[in-house]
């Protein structure tokens, strides 16, 4: 089918494209920084959604792939002098490879056991990296300010990072839509609904789950590299923050698990809310508590999330909201 007949794909794509373009044209550093954070979480949420929303496996420690990929990419940049694009893709590939290996073991677990195992993996990775001397151990790695000269100065480097992230979020949107509307995606959704029944119907669940895990780990690796490149340093405490993982889950639930645009919308909404709460004098130390409350309310009253609810409520919107 041609693209114009797939509004569920091109509507979010065009919106994200225009969003990035607007920031690029405006040339404002503050806007770029805010948008970078929003797009970063949107990409993390959209990639985790492939595992959580389509396959039904809740990974609490998904941020491990952001950390591992970010570390690898940053190491290649700073110690080996690789260009940003190549380092970012390598970070993504490393995360994907690690996910493939881990998947063989932990994807045998289901439900709460899988969720717990992923937390364990994140903590184990943090402990390992903290003691891994090529990656700088507990102090991590950093680059000197002069390093950015090769990118035409720090300002140019920051814009380059922004554009790379912008391309990444466009790519994850396409991949997310592509997976959802493929034979592979139908198999994933069958696994989500009833894995045993899916197996009996011929879905190669062990293989399909692993591929979903690999795809959902690839993008966080890229995002991690871009993020740490932008910051100029990486350390274990920043790379493996469990609360970022949980916030990503809240975003997916808020926007609508198993939808293409839901995680993007959820990330933007949640980050917007968080930004307000953090700067408001009344709530500034309560933002995680409020995130917890939001999650509770969603699970109780709006389990399908915003996009899911709209799709259920207004059948006519289904073609446009994926």
């Amino acid at each position, binding site marked *: 089918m041609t693209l114009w007949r797939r509004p569920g794909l091109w509507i979010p794509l065009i919106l994200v494209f225009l969003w990035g373009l607007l920031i690029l044209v405006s040339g404002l550093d503050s806007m770029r920084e805010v948008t970078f954070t929003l797009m970063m979480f949107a990409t993390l949420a959209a990639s985790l959604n492939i595992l959580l929303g389509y396959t039904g496996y809740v990974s609490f420690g998904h941020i491990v792939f952001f950390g591992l990929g970010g570390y690898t990419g940053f190491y290649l940049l700073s110690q080996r002098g690789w260009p940003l694009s190549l380092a970012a893709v390598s970070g993504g590939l490393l995360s994907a490879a690690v996910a493939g290996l881990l998947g063989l073991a932990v994807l045998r677990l289901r439900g709460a056991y899988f969720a717990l195992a992923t937390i364990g993996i994140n903590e184990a990775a943090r402990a390992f990296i903290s003691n891994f001397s090529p990656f700088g151990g507990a102090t991590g790695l950093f680059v000197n300010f002069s390093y950015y000269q090769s990118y035409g100065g720090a300002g140019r480097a920051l814009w380059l990072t922004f554009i790379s992230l912008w391309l990444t979020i466009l790519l994850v949107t396409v991949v997310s839509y592509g997976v959802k509307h493929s034979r592979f995606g139908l198999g994933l959704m069958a696994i989500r609904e009833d894995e045993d029944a899916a*197996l009996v119907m*011929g879905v190669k669940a062990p293989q399909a789950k692993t591929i979903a895990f690999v795809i959902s780990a690839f993008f966080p690796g890229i995002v991690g590299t871009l993020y740490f490149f932008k910051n100029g340093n990486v350390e274990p405490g920043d790379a493996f923050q469990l609360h970022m993982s949980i916030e990503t889950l809240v975003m997916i639930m808020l926007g609508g698990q198993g939808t293409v645009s839901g995680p993007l919308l959820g990330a933007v909404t949640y980050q917007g809310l968080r930004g307000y709460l953090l700067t408001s004098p009344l709530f500034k130390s309560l933002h995680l508590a409020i995130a917890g409350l939001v999650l509770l309310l969603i699970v109780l009253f709006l389990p399908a999330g915003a996009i899911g609810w709209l799709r259920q409520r207004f059948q006519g919107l289904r073609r446009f909201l994926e």
Partner: protein
Amino acid sequence: MILEVKDVTKLFGGLQALNHVSFTLPEGQILGLIGPNGAGKTTLFNVINGVFPPDQGRVTLRGEDITGLPPYEVARRGLARTYQVVRPLADLTVLENVMVGSCFGRHCYSLHQAAQVAREVLQQVGLVRHSALPAGSLNVAEKKRLELARAVAAQPYLLLLDEVLAGLNPSEIAAMLDTIRRIRDTGVTIIMIEHVMQAVMNISERILVLDYGQIIADGSPQEVANNLAVIEAYLGDPKLAARLLTG
């Protein structure tokens, strides 16, 4: 022979769920599998389609040994089954449910082809007007039909039906039997576990009776109905009352 089950034994801890079960099934037959509760009927299905590997014995489908293969490999070789307790993929639509069957069944269809096959099958089982509804919203009789449609959409050589008539009212049973006959007429071989005796005696060409994991009778419906061992398995020893009376 489409299916050969040879000397299959399955133990659950100390319980002998299947005890040296052997039978063969020629193509195009409807085989009724009956027996008291706990006789091992569903376990036999689970062993045939790869949910559990047998502890002993072999299962051969169309000349190929499928013993111990995982269920998805067995499904691709042309074997489909329904579950006794319906397992709809609740959040997917009825059409998508059936598409899973055809996509991952014997033919590995593309989404487009699978949708076509699924629509035909839904027509066949009379669910086509519910295609766009979420499967979770169907009633029990419709869910049973959906379960059947999913299995049929895989276009299997052999279809295992686990109590598709349970929980249906008489008119629904009649409609379902009609559907099953039509499926048989397309060349599919069927094994059905059933407790609705009249129906299974009526539709099956041959009946296999399991009791405590063993085959105690194998023959035409008439032969089986008059078999003393079968009557005893279901009703207890028919001569027991007489013996008690005479002391």
